[in-house]
């Protein structure tokens, strides 16, 4: 499997009130295409910062970040936006849907910034994605009329609409109860099996168990990097 994400000597510092906080201290990681990775670690370990860097939302202080073959660490703000728009899909802990838009319009949102023409074809694609996540009967609902699990499913549909190379999840089940969490994770696993690369941040072990590979961070360094493919196979019957 070719590496879809490769980071070399990744350093990220924050400057807070004149003090330098060393969040990521020289990470070297590589994620394969089609992998399902859980980033774990205690608060302040830098897992969220790493996800932001991977999502091209944050700049790195030094080091290199290759997305596919492209070095995105030197890109301009506009180019990073373009990368997010074309190659990445985001799923957030708090869903981050726009309250004034309907389900279909929320799913459509990433296409708005791709410079492509929105027509019936894109619309039917959004409807198909909403049906895929099981919201075919709630196309014209607003986010506030949906439950948390349903909102997160809209977010998953939204992350898929631009057919991304990489889906990034920031504690996608953080706000959900156990039953709904399982539904969401099943959905993510289905996506992974259909070939999508997923990297998610979580601090719950039972959520991390759904992933094929678990990377634990501590104090800005990799603490452990375990593949639990065997476990996932064992869970398949669940």
């Amino acid at each position, binding site marked *: 499997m070719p590496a879809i994400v490769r980071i070399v000597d990744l350093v990220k510092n924050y400057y807070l009130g004149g003090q330098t906080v060393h969040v990521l201290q020289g990470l070297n990681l590589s994620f394969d295409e089609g992998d399902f990775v859980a980033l774990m670690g205690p608060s302040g370990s830098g897992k969220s910062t790493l996800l932001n860097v991977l999502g091209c939302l944050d700049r790195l202080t030094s080091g290199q970040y290759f997305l596919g073959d492209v070095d995105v660490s030197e890109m301009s703000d506009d180019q990073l*936006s*373009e990368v*997010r728009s074309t190659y990445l899909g*985001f799923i957030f802990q708090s869903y981050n849907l726009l309250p*004034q838009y309907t389900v279909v319009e929320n799913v459509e*949102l990433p296409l*708005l*910034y791709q*410079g492509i023409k*929105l027509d019936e074809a894109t619309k039917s694609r959004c409807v198909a994605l909403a049906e895929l996540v099981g919201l075919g009967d709630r196309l014209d609902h607003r986010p506030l009329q949906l439950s948390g699990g349903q909102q997160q499913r809209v977010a998953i549909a939204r992350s898929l609409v631009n057919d991304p190379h990489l889906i990034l999840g920031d504690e996608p089940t953080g706000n959900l109860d156990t039953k709904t969490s399982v539904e969401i994770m099943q959905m993510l696993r289905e996506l992974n099996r259909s070939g999508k690369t997923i990297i998610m941040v979580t601090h719950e072990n039972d959520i991390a168990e759904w992933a094929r590979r678990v990377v634990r961070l501590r104090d800005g360094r990799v603490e452990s990097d375990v593949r639990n493919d065997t476990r996932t196979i064992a869970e398949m019957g669940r």
Partner: protein
Amino acid sequence: MSASQPGLNPYLLGGLGAGALVVLLGWLFLSGRIGHGGTSAKLRRSVSLAVKSLWLHKLRSFLSVLGIIIGTCSVIALMSFGEGSMQDALEDIKRQGATNIIVRSVKPPDDSATASRGFVTTYGLTRDDIGQFDAFGASVSRVVPMRVFPTEVRYLERILSNGRVIATTPDYQQVNKLELSRGRFLVEADDTELDNYCVLGAEAADKLFPYEDPIGQSVGMRSHFFRVIGVIKDRMPTGGTGGSQAAENFNRDIYIPISTSRRRFGEVIFTRTSGSRSAEKVDVSQVTLTVDAQVDTPEGRATVKAVGDEVKAILEKRHARKDYDITVPLDKLEEAERAQARFTALMAMIASISLVVGGIGIMNIMLATVTERTREIGIRRALGAKRKDIILQFLVEAVVQTTIGGLCGAVIGVTAVYAIPGAWDVLRGWEWVSGPALPAKLHVTSIFLSVCVSVLVGVCFGLYPAWRAAKLDPIEALRHV
């Protein structure tokens, strides 16, 4: 020359505003967007999104555009009322005859001493002077001389003491645009046959003949009797427009043929003023030349001015003392037009202050909106929106607000221009208010101007909040609650 000037400035301003707007928006859309092909679709979508998010906060959006609505509406209303009242004044001047040149005999100031001693003073225009004016040929269509006698007019025991007897030629009617209510005006034959005919002004007729039909009756002036052959329609006095021309009230005038006046009353005009007698020999009190030209064209105006200069040159050559006075109403017309242009510009300026205030209101609410929607901005940025897209979104929102506000204000303003004078008339009819009618003429340019300015206000005052929104760090914005 200044015919096009009052209209030019607002057009220029409006054009500049619209041009700047188009360039700015065009730059925003086209820079980096060519090749993707979705420019107009993108704009349409941005507008519909803006309308959608404005619709979420109906009351707030309405309140924030209220300033723009009031501003636009007051620009249109003020400019229209200004235009209306000024046109009223201009009509007044035109009624005097803007193509006329009026030359009057004026008693030179140094002769007042001789006059008081009882000698006959000779001054003013002569019949020979008038003969000189024939040199103008076709460019002057009428030369109307007149002699004025302040004298009593009697009918039976009724006396009109403050009337003016004016001896003139038939052309006087056209020159002063007099309309007859009864009978006829003087004709050429009255003059050649030295008929004792007279035409009464409306008020004079009313005073002398309150009950009878004046036509065919004889009125007495000095020792002669004149038969009434016509009555002039009641007419508004012309306003005193400054300069040498006093306000003229035509309603107390009595017109007689000029040759008759010379034969019956002689060349010397006697006047009695507060006990003392004075005698003056004046051939002609006033001459009105009507130039054959259109005042609406620059060429026509030039012709009128050229004739005016020529008249001045002739009289300067023939009169050693300055015992005449030349009035060109066109000068006053142009002066008034310049005043109108200044006045209208001032009105527009005052009213545009409220547009600026409205713009500040928009900016205030847009800044609040940006803070409130920080998270939305973060989401959009995470999903691939560029800084430019965020700027566009908030700018379009501001411009949509001010454009809608401007259009609403224009509708209200135009309605006000038609409704307020009507309502005023109704109130006057009920005698709840007093005062003259409100003249209003819809100032069409001001509609385009004010709507353009309000769109421009949206761009100017929307730019900073939009820039603030685009400047936000995506991660910070996403973390915002």
